[in-house]
Every structure is written in structure tokens, then in C-alpha cells.
């Protein structure tokens, strides 16, 4: 271990740690562009300069300088502040300052750092350099060469994380620019990550481009509902409509990345028409009548099965299971949905909570299912046609009725994956907190409340979501094969 002081605070780090990382461990933020936690640094932006051992003649770049025993590092000394100001001035000399039409504005480190460390004024009176403004890197990514500060995070992302080189730097000096390689447009299924790591607005997502200024949007720190990997994301919405998913760093699951398919899956959750209120045989009814009808149909529970979607949260499944237990339903099954997996993040199970469902005692639909009298479908799930044959009744609880709606005796409303609140367990057995990114509006009750009220709430040890989460977590931890890691958002 190496001991050093940063701004007078002593810190002990592993050998090989850079000054920037050591400062970060102390909570001291040193500005940086070319350095990124998950792809390292290149040392080209020069904005992370610090003073080491009082040497004001030659400042060190903290992203590359390893910690040394007994170093005395100053991050806010007079020479550092002056040098940083100079670097910021150089970075902004040819930057177009078209923040008014730039999508990065509002979440742009160049804006933030120039506000904190820059001079707020420019001495540059000559003409700014002109470069290409609209370069199509692919059907997903657009590049603006003028805004680029050549930190090369994007090229290094492909080199270090994706082991490919679809883009690179061409030309020298002032004419340097990022350019497509000879193989044409980028085809990588993880290419949109370069849009997130680009510290300026040079790389923009063609999907989100010009859709909304970020300061008008609402954000929810949640989990990607696309597959069982459970990548941490921030969902951005504007006036009740999802506009984008962006990854949120979680070093244990997805680092700073997510797949393009998961990112674009937000479109599925902007539904215009949905089930509101309860329906009995297609007629609007009160929830009380619907609950009474379900109780009448289910009767003693023999010959009835519950088929739950694995996008339900553990809390919802727990409440569902509690009701099924009271109603005497023995068959608790979960649905499944798969898509093409790959060797990086994308898992073949395209639902986020299969593991949680299994931990709570739900089983896959058996290949030779017993003869059924009735079926209760909870959530959006593909029902195998074999189950639907010879049914007396079907109870459908789902945000969208879909093809099953005409066959359903009782229909109840439900939440979409981005409206849920609770716990999902990913394929690695990590329980993660899910937060709602959208509100469902009138006529829709939280799924767990629906099952609670259906079973008659009295006698349940939980009446609030908080209490239910506590009960549910205890049960998950009791049944976990792998240690359950709770990652709070």
C-alpha cells in the first residue's frame, strides 16, 4: 500500500492507482474528459492537471500519473487553477458553442467544467475552424466533427470493450477528426454506448436527437426491463412518455454499458390504449364485483392454475401467491419469453424477474400440463395455446388485453414494466430496486394491491408496499442458492 496526501488529506491506495482515482476515492473530483472509469485514459485532454510535490513548472496529468509514496498532491493550487483555465480556453477555441441546438446541453461536462473552471469569456477573435456537422456513423449514431474535442473515448471504447475498430482518428493537428473505418457504418449492437460516454454533443443518438431538452425531462433510476441481466438504467420521460433509457453505472452488473436492443425497448412501454377499470365479460364493472366474480369462478381452486409473467416484481408475485394460497390454487406457473442472446450483456431470457419468480416457488409451465378448468393470467405473458383449450373461464390481468381479451371472463388492469415499483432478481441472483418511470393514470391499481384486495387484506402481515418488500426480501434471502446481493438504486 502507498500513502500520499491529496489536498492535505491522507489516503492509502494500491500500487498502480492513478492520482485521479485516488482523489476520487477521497471524494475529490478532478475534471477529466479522456479518462473514463471503464475504459481508462489516454492523457490527451490535459484538463486533469495537478501539482505534485510543489512542482509548479511541470504539472502532472492525474489520469496517468501513478501514486507514489509520500506524494503531496494539490488539486486546487494557484498554478493548477491557472493551467486548467488555459486548457479550457484551448478546448473551447474551436468548439462551436451551439449549445442552443445541442442535445448534450444540460448534461455536458464541457459546459459544467467551463462554468466551474473556465474564464467565462473568450479572447479568440479569429474564425473558428469548420468541420463536418452531420456525419452518419450508422443508422443509430450521428457525428458532429465541430463539437468533438478529440478525447478519443469512442474509439477506445470499441478497442477496449468491444475489441473492434469501426472508427478512428484521421488527419493531424487541427484537422484531426474522428472518422469511419473502411468497413462503412458501425454495425456493433452496443454502439450507442459511445453516445453516452462522449463528453460533448459530438456523438448523438439519432433516435433521441432533438426530441427534448433534458432539463424538461423526468428521470427515474431503475433497472432495464429488457432481459434478465438487470442492467441499471436511468429512464427519461417527458409528459408521461418515455423518451430514452441510458445506462447507469453498476460495476457488478453492466459497468457503464447496455445493449442497443435494451436501450431501444423503451418504445414498447409508450402504450396509448390500455385496460382501465375491471371488465366482466367485456362489460365495465366495479372492482368489488370483479373480485366476487373471480371468487365464484375459482371456487375451491381445483383445476385452476395461475400463470404469472416474469416481469412481475417479487412483491407482486408474493401477493399473487398469497391470494392463490387462500383460494386453494395449487398450480403456480411462470411464463417465459426469450430473444437472441450474445456474449456481452444480453441474456436469452427476455424478462427481468425469472429468478425471483422461481425463488418464490413459481415453476415453468409443465410440458404435459394437467387438464384445467380455469386459468388466471397475471401480467403480460405468452400463454401456450395448449393451456387455453377446454377452459371454462379465463381471468386476465394485464395492462393490454391483446389477443386474449375476447376470451377473458374477467379482465383486470395492470402496470407495464416501467410503471412497477418493487424488486427484480436478475439472472445472477442480485435483487435490485425498481422504480416507476411512468404513472399509469386513472383506473389502474398497483398489481400487488390488486392481489392483496382480491384475497381480502385482513390477516396479511403486509398492507403497504414497504412492509411487503420486507416480507418478500426475507423470503428471497431464505431461498437463495447464491448469496443475494441487494443493490439499492
Amino acid at each position, binding site marked *: 500500500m502507498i500513502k500520499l496526501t491529496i489536498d492535505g488529506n491522507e489516503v492509502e491506495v494500491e500500487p498502480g492507482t492513478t492520482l485521479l482515482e485516488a482523489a476520487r476515492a477521497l471524494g475529490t473530483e478532478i475534471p477529466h474528459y479522456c479518462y473514463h472509469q471503464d475504459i481508462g485514459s489516454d492523457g490527451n485532454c490535459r484538463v486533469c492537471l495537478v501539482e505534485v510535490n510543489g512542482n509548479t513548472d511541470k504539472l502532472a496529468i492525474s489520469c496517468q500519473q501513478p501514486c507514489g509514496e509520500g506524494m503531496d498532491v494539490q488539486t486546487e493550487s494557484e498554478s493548477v487553477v491557472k493551467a486548467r483555465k488555459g486548457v479550457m480556453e484551448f478546448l473551447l477555441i474551436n468548439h462551436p458553442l451551439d449549445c*442552443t*441546438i445541442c442535445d448534450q446541453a444540460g448534461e455536458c461536462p464541457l459546459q459544467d467544467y467551463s462554468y466551474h473552471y473556465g474564464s467565462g469569456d473568450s479572447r479568440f477573435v479569429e474564425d473558428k*475552424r*469548420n*468541420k*463536418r*456537422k*452531420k456525419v452518419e456513423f450508422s443508422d443509430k449514431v450521428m457525428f458532429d466533427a465541430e463539437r468533438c474535442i478529440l478525447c478519443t473515448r469512442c474509439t477506445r471504447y470499441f478497442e477496449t470493450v468491444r475489441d473492434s475498430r469501426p472508427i478512428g482518428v484521421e488527419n493531424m493537428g487541427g484537422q484531426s477528426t474522428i472518422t469511419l473505418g473502411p468497413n462503412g457504418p458501425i454495425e456493433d449492437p452496443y454502439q450507442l454506448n459511445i453516445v453516452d460516454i462522449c463528453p460533448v454533443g459530438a456523438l448523438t443518438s439519432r433516435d433521441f*436527437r432533438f426530441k427534448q*431538452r433534458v432539463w424538461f425531462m423526468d428521470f427515474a433510476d431503475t433497472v432495464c426491463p429488457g432481459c434478465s441481466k438487470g442492467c441499471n438504467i436511468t429512464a427519461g420521460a417527458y409528459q408521461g412518455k418515455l423518451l430514452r433509457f441510458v445506462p447507469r453505472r453498476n460495476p457488478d452488473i453492466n459497468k457503464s454499458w447496455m445493449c442497443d436492443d435494451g436501450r431501444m425497448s423503451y418504445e414498447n412501454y409508450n402504450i396509448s390504449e390500455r385496460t382501465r377499470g375491471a371488465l366482466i365479460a367485456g362489460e365495465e364493472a366495479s372492482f368489488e364485483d370483479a373480485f366476487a366474480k373471480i371468487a365464484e369462478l375459482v371456487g375451491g381452486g381445483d383445476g385452476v392454475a395461475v400463470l404469472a409473467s416474469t416481469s412481475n416484481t417479487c412483491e407482486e408475485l408474493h401477493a399473487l401467491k398469497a391470494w392463490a394460497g387462500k383460494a386453494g390454487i395449487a398450480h403456480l406457473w411462470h411464463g417465459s419469453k426469450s430473444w437472441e442472446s450474445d456474449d456481452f450483456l444480453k441474456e436469452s431470457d427476455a424478462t427481468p424477474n425469472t429468478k425471483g419468480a422461481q425463488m418464490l416457488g413459481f415453476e415453468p409451465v409443465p410440458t404435459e400440463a394437467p387438464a384445467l378448468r380455469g386459468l388466471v393470467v397475471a401480467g403480460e405473458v405468452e400463454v401456450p395455446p395448449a393451456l387455453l383449450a377446454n377452459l371454462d373461464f379465463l381471468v386476465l390481468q394485464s395492462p393490454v388485453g391483446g389477443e386474449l381479451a375476447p376470451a377473458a371472463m374477467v379482465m383486470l388492469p395492470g402496470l407495464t414494466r416501467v410503471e412497477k415499483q418493487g424488486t427484480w432478481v436478475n439472472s445472477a441472483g442480485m435483487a435490485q430496486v425498481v422504480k416507476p418511470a411512468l404513472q399509469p393514470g386513472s383506473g389502474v391499481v398497483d398489481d400487488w394491491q390488486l392481489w392483496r384486495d382480491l384475497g381480502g387484506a385482513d390477516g396479511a402481515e403486509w398492507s403497504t408496499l414497504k412492509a411487503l418488500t420486507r416480507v418478500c426480501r426475507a423470503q428471497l434471502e431464505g431461498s437463495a442458492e447464491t448469496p443475494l446481493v441487494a443493490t439499492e438504486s
Partner: protein
Amino acid sequence: MAKVVERRKLNFWEELYLPAIVDGLGRTFRQMFKPEITLQYPEQRPVIADDYRGAPGLVKDEEGREKCVSCQLCEYICPPKAIVIEPGEVSEETSYDYSGIEKAPQEFYIDMLRCIYCGYCEEICPEQAIFMTGEYELNASTRQELVFDKARLYKLGGTRPGLLKKWKHKDDGLAAEEH
């Protein structure tokens, strides 16, 4: 408790009333020969000052180009939240020679019932695209009619010559380099 006001006793001439009537008629007749100052609105119109803050409108420059780049700063600053903009990419038809511009409003709504005519939108606009016009007659039979859309706002703002054109020569350097 009410206060009792003692009335002054009138003298002889005052009790006659006639002098007061003659005095009043005299004033009336004198007024008839003075110039009129009443404005016969709506046939006659008041003179509106240049900096009058009437309904805000969007303007085009003398080349007929939309000035607005939908940066939404006016939407942000608007105290009563009267402005709603739907941003979007400049379409092929509306794209001009100004290659630096990529963004234009797809729709631009100002709710004139919400607008408080403060002029912040004009003040904050970095593109000189929105101005307070002299329009003060905002009547309609429904509320919806007073939510002005983009077409109506451009009609209201009209054309303003002599505005800044910061995007106009932006691309010259690149064009010269390519030739």
C-alpha cells in the same frame, strides 16, 4: 356613531340656483368649440409605441428563413408556462443554405390566455426569433382559439430585416476547403 355634519346656510344668490345653471351651461358650450380628444375605437386606432409589449410572435428574416432553432429557452424562462415547443430536425423542404442549422420547431404553441406579456421570451432568445408585437386585440369565442400555433405566430410576427445571421457564413470555410 355617525357624525352629524352641519350644513352651511345658503345666501340669497345661491338659493336662486340660476347663476349656477348659467355657469354650467357656459362650461358646456365652451367645450363644444374645443378640439376632440375621444378616440373613436375601433374605427380610430391608438398609436402603439415601438417597444409596446403585445402578443409575442415569431419572425422570419428578409430571406424568409425561420429564425427559431427551437432551443426552448423561451419555454424555460416563460413565467406562466404559456409556451410549448415541439422541437425537431430541419426538414428537407425547409432547409436553407444555412448548413449550420439542424434544428427547427415542428410546432410552436403560445397560450395567449396564459401569456402575461412580460417580454422575457424576446429578451432571452439567442436567435432574435421571437418579438413582442403591437397586437393587443385577442378575442375568441373559445379558449382553444387563443392557443396560437406556429403558422399563426409567424403571421403575427411577420418579417423583420436587419437581424443577426450567425449561421449564414458558418459553412464557408468548409466549402472553400472542399473546392
